[in-house]
């Protein structure tokens, strides 16, 4: 993978998986995972909102846990499994995941800039077995700031996705 822009090209190689695909980057170890995703791997779905771990716009799932990718140096993800917003939809059939579909129908995305991180926090909650429980959902997305929605329709969307998963199980 060639650097798309302004990527330091020298450094040790780090290997990890992103959305199931093996990736390798040769960059300084303290380079932020956020920059590796956005600039070195061209995965710009993950957003930067504050750069100091407050807003959650850069949330990704790292070995099953939600992390702020602006606070994770790439040297910490060697050998890890990373999931980003680009991995949620079914690429082959072009269909949204049940969670994305629920956000679309409920009106959980407005300006959309917090949405990728919000989706990853919600996905991690659902993956961990979280149900359609408002308090649990509020806590699961407490690290993800949204300035548009008042969170109402985001919580509804996650409830819808949890209910649908329950119905399918």
């Amino acid at each position: 993978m060639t650097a798309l822009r302004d990527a330091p090209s020298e450094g040790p190689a780090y290997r990890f998986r992103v959305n199931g695909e093996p990736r390798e980057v040769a960059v300084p170890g303290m380079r932020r995972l956020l920059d590796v995703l956005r600039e070195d791997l061209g995965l710009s779905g993950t957003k930067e909102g504050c750069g100091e771990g407050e807003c959650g716009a850069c949330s990704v799932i790292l070995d099953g846990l939600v992390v702020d990718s602006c606070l994770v140096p790439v040297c910490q993800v060697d050998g890890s499994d990373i999931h980003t917003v680009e991995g949620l939809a079914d690429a082959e059939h072009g269909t949204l995941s049940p969670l994305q579909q629920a956000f679309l129908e409920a009106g959980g995305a407005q300006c959309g800039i917090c949405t990728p991180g919000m989706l990853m926090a919600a996905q991690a909650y659902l993956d961990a077995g979280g149900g359609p429980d408002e308090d649990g959902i509020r806590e699961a997305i407490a690290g993800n700031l949204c300035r548009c929605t008042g969170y109402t329709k985001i919580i509804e969307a996650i409830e819808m996705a949890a209910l649908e998963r329950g119905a399918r199980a």
Partner: protein
Amino acid sequence: MREPARDERLAVETPVVLPPPAPGQVPLPTLGRARPAPLRREGPDKLTGKARYTDDIVLPGAWYGATIRSTEPHARLLGMELDPEFDWSRVVVMTAADIPGENIVSSIKSDMPALADGVIRHHAEPVALVAAPDKATLREARRRITLRTEPLEPVFDPFESTQQFAAYEVGRGDVEAAFAKASLVIEGEYRVGHQEQLYIENQAMIAEPRPDGGITITGSMQCPYYVHDALKRALALSDTQAVISQAETGGGFGGKEEFPSVVAIHAALLAQRVGKPVRMIYNRHEDIAASTKRHPAVIRYRTGIGADGSLVSQDVEVVMDGGAYCTLTPVVLSRGVLHAGGPYECPNVRIRGRAMATNTPPNGAFRGFGAPQVEFAAELQVARAADQLGVSPAALRERWLYREGGVTPTGQVLRESVAAAEVLERATEAAEYERVRELSVQTRGVRWSQAAEAGRGIGSTRVQSAPGIGLALAWHGAGFTGSGEVHLASVAGVELGDDGVVRVLIANTEIGQGTNTIFPMLAGEALGIDPSEVQMAPVDTSLVPDSGPTVASRTAMVVGGLVIKAAQRLRATVEARSGAPFAQSYRRDARANGATRVDERFEPYPNVAFDDETYTGDAYPAFGWACAVAQVEVDLDTAEVRVRSVVSADDVGRVIHPVLAEGQVEGGTLQAVGYATIEEMKMDNGRYANDRLSTYLIPTSMDAPDITSILVEKPFSGAPHGAKGVGELPMDVVAPAVIDAIHDAVGVWITQLPATPERILAALRVLGS
């Protein structure tokens, strides 16, 4: 034209279940009701990470730009020192002297320089620009630039300032005579501070040099033609040399109304000098430190009440802090003055407002635009009046509020679309306000005495928290103030392209509120085709006419009206040619006759006239109305306020898309909860002390109340679809409801926003002593 990137397979439509219309409600057309409301048009792109925000756009060879800013609030700028150890040939550095056009950020007044020249008037003021081919070099260069300055005495208090940006006075009746006869006079002084818009996407612009010597700007913005004007003036470009294109925009709330002009000019200056694209992407710290905020204000209020409990007089003085440069301050102040009486008819009114300059970063547009500040004061006055009269706050409002035929302080007769009584009724009923309040009043004695003890220190009370319920009512003038829309003379178009595709041509931006989704609905209904058959032209000044800024809750009402009229004319033209309904004939018509485009220019609403000189007449073509009931809990150890629920009824004229309209109310409600409880900018020698997201707090999902949104429809006849706008109403109404609830909980009136634990404890200490 590029087609909106959209996977048709993802665009599934779901029916929207709506409550039946209330009895007596005007029957409305089918739009958004019988027909399913379409899903957010660009939703799939936003949900999959495909949407391209400015910082996501990759341009090979682009340089990075940065702004060198002042670190003093007021100083003489003597010069700039470049460290001789650094190789300056690797970068580009520009100052005011390098600006090819006028050193002005075009706005209402021509007072704000793009780069400071000679004098620094506020902290974080742009002084110089640097660009470098990579971020590391840029960082290095920034570190090696030193400003040489000589401090000047700063002014931070608007009451000590001698420089006035604007002043307005409105009124009617004989105020002093009415106060002399009043049996009860309520006086209050209210203070509100800065509020940061805190869109989650920071300010961002990319400038690319054009072959014609001009610049193309791609960026995050609300108002492409504001940026267009600013760029032409500062870079001395022609209309066609400045091309402004909106990227996907991650929130605005007014913060991307006028400030993007500054960022775009800076990026464009560098791009022109470097000869390559330049990226100017702010980080959060720079964004908070430098961008505009909601105006702080002090409001002094006197309310006179007659022996029969009627509202007889209001005397209001509004002083706003404009910051160092004018920006949109006169219009913010004007809206503040026009709303300061609140939604109540009063025969004797005097409202005086002035906005003063201080050596602090300029303040500007923020959702509500001057109204939230004054309506906080107006509602607290009414709440305190009800308290002193010993009557229900809802009943007092019911008595005082505007009805059809009511006359406002500017002498405007409210002939239609007045829903103050209806929103009050709908919100109080849904929240069971009177029942809850009566119970709450009965238990006040014990609760308030425990709260008064809480002022003495942690752990002094036996109960953990005190609940309270509060109410507020608000109005919000729809669209631009006064003759604003007439001066703007917006143009919107609908085109049937030679490719057989119908496109809406407007410069109004999608910033999350739903422009992309509702305009195809409006045009589609007028044309008799499905919204999915209507596309939105890219928002690019070389392609779309100037339909005015995306501000003032005007897009759906004013521009929506223009688009409906343009679509109706397009339909008539095509049907006259084809002799068949548009839906069946438009594709064939396009093949046979090529493109047909209809532009519609704004015409003044009938019987709406405002005199800018005397400030009398119809200040707004119509008003939106809102009522909120808030329930809170105040922790009696820490005095933290938890807003449990907000029930809000908002009259928006007509609901175009229920999910999107509710989304506006819910989001605005939470911003107002933040304004009321936690959002506070601390000033330190003219700079924002908490200019980071770790120190400027906004509500999280854990802080957000349970929000119930009731949409009320009292259509405005001047707009073909009856819509009045929705974005700003919730911002006006919720903060006073929360403060009223805090009073019900613990017995103190908090007169300064936000109601922080420190302020509540201080007030309780007074009560307890």
